[in-house]
């Protein structure tokens, strides 16, 4: 089964790129190829001019699924990457404490993940990745399972971290609002097998306020421009698009755009 077809794009250093597209369009496959988890059947992935063969160093990956280790406390989860890299003692402790503080999890250091909410667990996962200071961050719908409020809080946190450290980020999502809020550039994918449909530069200046942003004209403009293209993808006939269109439209509509974009497909 072909997940993506003839996909080609470049991500610049320190750039925040979001990939959006309908469910099953191969967004996650692209990310897995970037991370060296999946080898492309044709073509190549290059990082700084060298082909990606295995899991590259200095790449952090945040999964959609909860991958916090349930048998480790918050503190020891955040310490994982440092432990693997042989950072021990005071240095480890200092960086873990910093991570716990950034994640807003003070007081929960010795809690096991089973006692935390989904949002807190995803914060741990994010901080566990950030604490080793990766240059490249691959994020596969990391906030997909969270409620809107928690999501917005984590958007703000991610942006503030990113503005301080400027990692190169590739962020996969099916939530258009999320993509506009976070990214410099948005890659819109077609339905399976996914191809690049549109590459769009987000013209919203930084720093961005994740809440106020949504009331601005620019946001509405960006949303409607991309939605027009993405909407076509959801509305095109053929395949399983019947309920997928509804499902995807429901997801994509969850970001409360200021006004309904003109080209929004009718939900029958």
């Amino acid at each position: 089964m072909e997940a993506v077809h003839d996909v080609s794009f470049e991500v610049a250093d320190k750039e925040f790129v979001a990939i959006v597209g309908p469910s099953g369009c191969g967004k996650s496959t692209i990310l897995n190829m970037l991370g060296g988890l999946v080898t492309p059947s044709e073509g190549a992935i290059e990082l700084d001019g060298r082909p990606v063969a295995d899991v590259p160093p200095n790449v952090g990956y945040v999964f959609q699924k909860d991958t916090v280790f349930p048998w480790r406390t918050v503190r020891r989860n955040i310490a994982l990457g440092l432990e693997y890299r042989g950072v021990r003692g005071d240095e480890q402790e200092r960086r873990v404490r910093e991570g716990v503080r950034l994640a807003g999890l003070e007081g929960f250091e010795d809690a096991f993940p089973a006692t935390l909410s989904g949002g807190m667990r995803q914060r741990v996962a994010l901080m566990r990745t950030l604490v080793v200071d990766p240059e490249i961050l691959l994020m596969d719908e990391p906030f997909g399972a969270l409620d809107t409020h928690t999501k917005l809080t984590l958007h703000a946190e991610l942006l503030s971290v990113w503005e301080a450290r400027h990692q190169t980020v590739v962020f996969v999502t099916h939530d258009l609002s999320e993509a506009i809020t976070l990214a410099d550039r948005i890659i819109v994918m077609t339905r399976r097998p996914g191809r690049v449909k549109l590459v769009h530069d987000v013209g919203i200046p930084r720093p961005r306020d994740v809440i106020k942003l949504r009331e601005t004209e620019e946001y509405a403009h960006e949303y409607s421009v991309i939605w027009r293209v993405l909407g076509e993808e959801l509305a095109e006939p053929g395949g399983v698009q019947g309920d997928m269109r509804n499902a995807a439209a429901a997801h994509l509509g969850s970001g409360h755009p200021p006004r309904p974009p003109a080209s929004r497909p009718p939900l029958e």
Partner: protein
Amino acid sequence: MTERAWVLCWRLLILVVLVGAWEWLTGIKAISTTPGLYWIDPFFVSRPSVILRRFAYLASGEVRLSIWAMALSTVQSTLWGFVVGVSTGFAAGLVLGRRDRLARVFEPFIIAFNSLPRIALVPLITMIFGFGLLAKIVLAWTIVFFIVFFNTFQGARGVDADLIHSARFLGASERQVMRTVIVPSALAWTFAALTPSVSFALIGVVVGEFLGGETGGGLGYLIIQSLGTLNAADMMVALLTLGVIGIVMALGIKQVERRLLRWRPEYRTGA
């Protein structure tokens, strides 16, 4: 009354009723004029009061082989068999669980050996290892190994691939993945096998002791001796002592499990 106290009260009550009924029923004569004829004959099932007396006697210094020495011997063999069986089973389960090809190669051998009724091996093991401690350990091992092996194998196989990937992205080497992801994931499965393993280790040891003779004779020896002398009371002393040993060992394992698996939600409360 707390939940705990309530449960404890009922347990005590049931115990008292059972022991009382035993004592009482074995005291009723079937036909009052014929001596020695009972509804339930204490010759076969003994009586609590007699058992207690025999226990006191066997526990005293008057006997050559005291009940303490026998219990100690049984516990020792069981623990050895358990420890050896668990550690080898765990190691083998981890390795084969993560090496698909190796697992495929060994599969028929493991299944074949595991299908053998272990009791059929007793004479062979005795022939090879003699009547001592070693034979009992080997016998317990042949059972415990497989229980632990199969569970650990399943556990090691079922480790969430995304957990392994996320460890790799955090910079883990092959060995670090093993230590920080696969071992802890598999442990939950392994622990599920430990309580039955204790019972099975005990079975292996007691069967070994049936043949073992007096040297290092444990409770199994006492049982066989009692059969020879048709002494139900002594047999009951051995059986009850085995029961107590089983309970204590199972409780010990529960404690270790509680501590090592305290991250699991089901151990959070009251731990």
